[in-house]
Every structure is written in structure tokens, then in C-alpha cells.
């Protein structure tokens, strides 16, 4: 066994010396290889973590959201439909929602305005998981976690707003400040900031503005006979799809969106094998494959002569192949580990600095959030098989041809 290990070590010694003789070429290859692993690993880490986080956060989203569709577009929902939905067997409750967007030309940002559900302002006996604090809430009941609402003694009432931390940051405003809005009829509404949502909740609330129903209707000119959409709760969770089907059948101009569809949306949109990432990545991989193939198959005269000399001094064909195997393994293992380490640092320590411009797009308001690193063995195994194995194989196969040539021919620079 020791003899076998020693043989491998001698071959590795020789391989490393051989690699170092062509420093520039091999360091270039290693850098390019590391870059490929870095891009692929960063994409996988980012997309997997955000998908996992979305699935955990959005599991509390409404069971069914029902929109009214007019000419293929989302339209205001008539309050009269609510009773019809309530009569459907299996429906436990129907709650209307008022929400919309407001474009702030001052900073060029879109805000999401939402009227909180009624119990939000009246029900003080929330379960422990709902960590919302108000001036008289018992913070001890919510455990040591910091509350998401920072009301500081103020509650949402007409003429006030509770804003997301992203809005507070972009507009540089805080509790007690006033924010002007231009209503649908051109009048200006000055709303006071009653509080801000916690910075820890930015991933869901960065652009959120909680506003009272009266102010919302006044701002957008929506009469009391219309709401934006409704949330339907179902008695038996297994009947959600059935109830959604019944709603669609009973009122054909409605579009029910069930929770599973919401979760599936976030499961599919950040697929690392799709979207723009695959376009960028496939170009990079193609460049790398061409580079690796060229390096492996198109042996230089020096490399060819080296193989010839090795065979002339007694190396077996299997030894030459072993040497090339170690060459591939040294380069690919080093690149794999460096790429993965750099990708982890990039995604979870620098907030995906490289992806940031693409993620922000044209948004003026972008949430500041730290992704939770969800890493599993499957991701690392996939990365390994996508990067290390193809390169090692790609270098072995062409070398077989070179290793079986006659040493005399190789040393005479012939047989090209």
C-alpha cells in the first residue's frame, strides 16, 4: 500500500513540476475554471436559498386570493360577489383586501399600499408567532425576538401610515414625519408616519405602506362598492383546489389563485437552469469547454516530446495516463474548492455583489436583506459532477491517443 501511495506522490510531484513549467497557461486555466465554478455555485446558492426562504415565508400566505378579470386584466372586485362566494360549500370565510401601487416621482419608486386586515388593528390576542408589537403589547409574550412593527406608541389611524424600512431609507423619513401624496383628483394628502416596519422584514415589506381603508379610498377614489381582491379561507385544507374550481365555475369572470400556485411561482422563477442565468452561463461553459478541449487534445510540441521522453525512459502508457489524470484532478479540485468558497463568500457575505445590478434592474427601491444560507449535499454533489468530472474525463480521453504514440516519433517532432 505504501509503495502505491509513494508512486502516486512521485507522479504528483512530477505533474506539479510539469504544470509549473507552463505557469501562464495553467494559471490562466485555473483562473478561468475557478470563475466558471464561482458563477455556477453562486447561482445555485442564491437561487436555492431564496427559493427555500420564499417557501418558508410564504407558507402563511392566503389559501385563495380571488381577483376579478376584465378583458384579461385584473379589475376592481365588486363587493356584491362576496356573498356569492361565501355561500359556496366549504368556504370558511371571505375577507376583502384593498391594495394598490403608488408611484413616487420624487425618488422614482413604486410603493405598495395596503390596508391591513381589520383584526390587525383591533385584535390584541394574536398567537405567539405573530410578533407585532404596539404601545400596550406585552413584549414578553412574543419571546426574545425583536418585533416587526416599530410603532413606538403610535397606532395606525386615519391620516397616518406605517411604512416599510426601504421607503424610510429611500425617502430619508422616519416616525413623525409627513409624506405628501397626490390623490386621484389632484388634491394633496399629507399623511403622518406612525411607525416603520422592522428592517429584518424587508424581504416582504421593504416597499410596503400600511394605510387605513378610509385614506386608501380617498387617495385612489375607489368607492365602497369595490375592493381590490378577496381572500378566501377554506374549512378543509384538502379542498382548496375544489373550492377554487367552484368559485371559477360560479363566477366565471373571477380568477382564483391558490397558495400552492404562489409557492410554485417562487419555486419555478428562480430555477438556475432557466432564465437569463442559463444564457450567461451556457456561453461561459461553452468557452471553457472549448478552452479545456483545446488544451487537452491539442498537445503542444513540448508536451508531446515530454511524453515521448517519459516513454523512452521506461514509463508505461498507464503511467502517462495516470500523470494526466492527476493533472486534471489537481486543476479541477483546486478550482472546485476555490470556486465554491468564493461563491459562498459572494452570496452570503457580500449580498450577491455580482448579481446585484441584474436583481435591482430598474428598481429605485430594493430591499436590503441577508439571505439565510441553505446549503445541502445535493447542491455540492451536483456542482462537483458538473465541473470536476467533465474536465477530468475531457483531459483523459485525448491523452490516450498521445500516450500510445511511438516515443521515437514523438521526440522527432513528427507524426503530427
Amino acid at each position: 500500500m505504501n509503495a502505491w501511495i509513494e508512486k502516486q506522490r512521485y507522479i504528483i510531484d512530477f505533474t506539479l513540476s510539469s504544470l509549473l513549467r507552463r505557469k501562464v497557461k495553467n494559471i490562466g486555466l485555473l483562473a478561468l475554471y475557478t470563475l466558471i465554478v464561482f458563477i455556477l455555485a453562486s447561482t445555485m446558492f442564491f437561487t436555492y436559498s431564496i427559493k427555500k426562504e420564499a417557501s418558508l415565508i410564504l407558507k402563511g400566505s392566503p389559501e385563495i386570493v380571488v381577483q376579478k378579470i376584465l378583458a384579461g386584466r385584473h379589475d376592481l372586485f365588486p363587493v356584491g360577489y362576496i356573498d356569492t362566494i361565501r355561500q359556496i360549500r366549504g368556504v370558511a370565510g371571505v375577507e376583502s383586501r384593498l391594495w394598490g401601487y403608488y408611484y413616487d416621482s420624487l425618488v422614482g419608486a413604486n410603493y405598495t399600499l395596503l390596508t391591513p386586515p381589520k383584526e390587525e388593528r383591533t385584535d390584541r390576542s394574536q398567537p405567539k408567532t405573530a410578533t407585532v408589537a404596539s404601545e400596550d403589547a406585552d413584549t414578553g409574550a412574543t419571546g426574545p425576538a425583536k418585533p416587526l412593527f416599530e410603532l413606538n406608541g403610535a397606532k395606525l389611524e386615519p391620516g397616518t401610515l406605517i411604512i416599510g424600512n426601504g421607503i424610510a431609507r429611500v425617502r430619508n423619513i422616519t416616525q413623525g414625519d409627513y409624506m405628501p401624496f397626490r390623490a386621484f383628483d389632484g388634491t394633496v394628502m399629507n399623511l403622518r408616519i406612525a411607525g416603520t416596519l422592522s428592517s429584518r422584514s424587508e424581504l416582504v415589506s421593504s416597499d410596503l405602506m400600511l394605510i387605513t381603508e378610509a385614506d386608501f379610498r380617498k387617495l385612489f377614489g375607489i368607492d365602497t362598492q369595490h375592493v381590490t381582491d378577496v381572500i378566501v379561507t377554506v374549512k378543509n385544507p384538502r379542498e382548496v383546489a375544489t373550492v377554487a374550481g367552484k368559485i371559477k365555475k360560479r363566477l366565471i369572470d373571477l380568477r382564483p389563485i391558490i397558495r400552492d400556485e404562489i409557492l410554485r411561482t417562487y419555486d419555478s422563477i428562480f430555477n438556475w437552469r432557466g432564465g437569463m442565468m442559463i444564457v450567461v452561463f451556457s456561453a461561459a461553459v461553452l468557452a471553457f469547454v472549448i478552452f479545456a478541449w483545446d488544451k487537452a487534445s491539442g498537445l503542444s510540441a513540448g508536451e508531446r516530446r515530454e511524453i515521448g521522453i517519459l516513454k523512452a525512459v521506461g514509463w508505461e502508457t498507464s503511467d502517462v495516463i495516470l500523470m494526466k489524470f492527476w493533472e486534471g484532478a489537481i486543476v479541477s479540485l483546486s478550482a472546485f474548492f476555490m470556486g465554491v468558497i468564493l461563491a459562498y463568500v459572494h452570496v452570503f457575505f457580500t449580498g450577491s455583489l455580482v448579481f446585484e445590478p441584474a436583481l435591482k434592474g430598474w428598481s429605485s427601491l430594493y430591499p436590503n436583506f441577508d439571505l439565510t444560507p441553505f446549503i445541502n449535499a445535493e447542491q455540492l454533489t451536483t456542482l462537483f459532477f458538473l465541473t470536476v468530472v467533465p474536465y477530468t474525463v475531457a483531459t483523459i480521453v485525448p491523452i490516450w491517443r498521445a500516450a500510445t504514440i511511438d516515443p521515437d516519433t514523438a521526440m522527432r517532432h513528427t507524426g503530427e
Partner: protein
Amino acid sequence: MRNSTLFFYCLSVEVLVLSLLLAHASVREGAAQDSLGEKSALVKRLGLTDLCLFTEARYTRHLSQADLNTPFQDHPLSLEHFPSGSFTQPPTVLTQQP
């Protein structure tokens, strides 16, 4: 020092750093449970449906609530032009054949 020894030292350091990062991931995941629970509770109480990732357009802000004709919503030849629209994929429900 032999080249092979140096190589195995370097490899060991890389494996060690990666192991430390995986341990870091595990610790962070455990520590984030409270924060995730709070965000989930906020989503539940306010009836939220989407993550606030792309605020550039209404259909990128609320991806799950967007109209079915989102890329062409302004007029029939209006192709998707927002950067986030090319970063994400359409929901599977739209790409599956009935």
C-alpha cells in the same frame, strides 16, 4: 518540501475552509429561524402574497398575482423589457399545457 506535500496541504486548507463555511451555514440557518418565523407571521397577518424583490413594475413586484398576459400588458406588441423579467421564468402554471 515536496510538491505533492504542498499540494495536499493546500487542498486540506481548502477543505477546512469549506467545512467551516458549511458549519457557518448550519449556525446561520439555526439562528435565522426566529427571523423567518416573524416574516412568515407578518405575511400571515397582512395576507401578503409575494416577496419584495423587484419593485420596478407591478407584475414583477407581485409575480404570483400578475395578469396572465403580463409581457404584453401595455399593448399586443409590447414585449417584456424589464431586467427582472428576463431574470425570472414564467410560473409553471402558464407553461404547462392543459
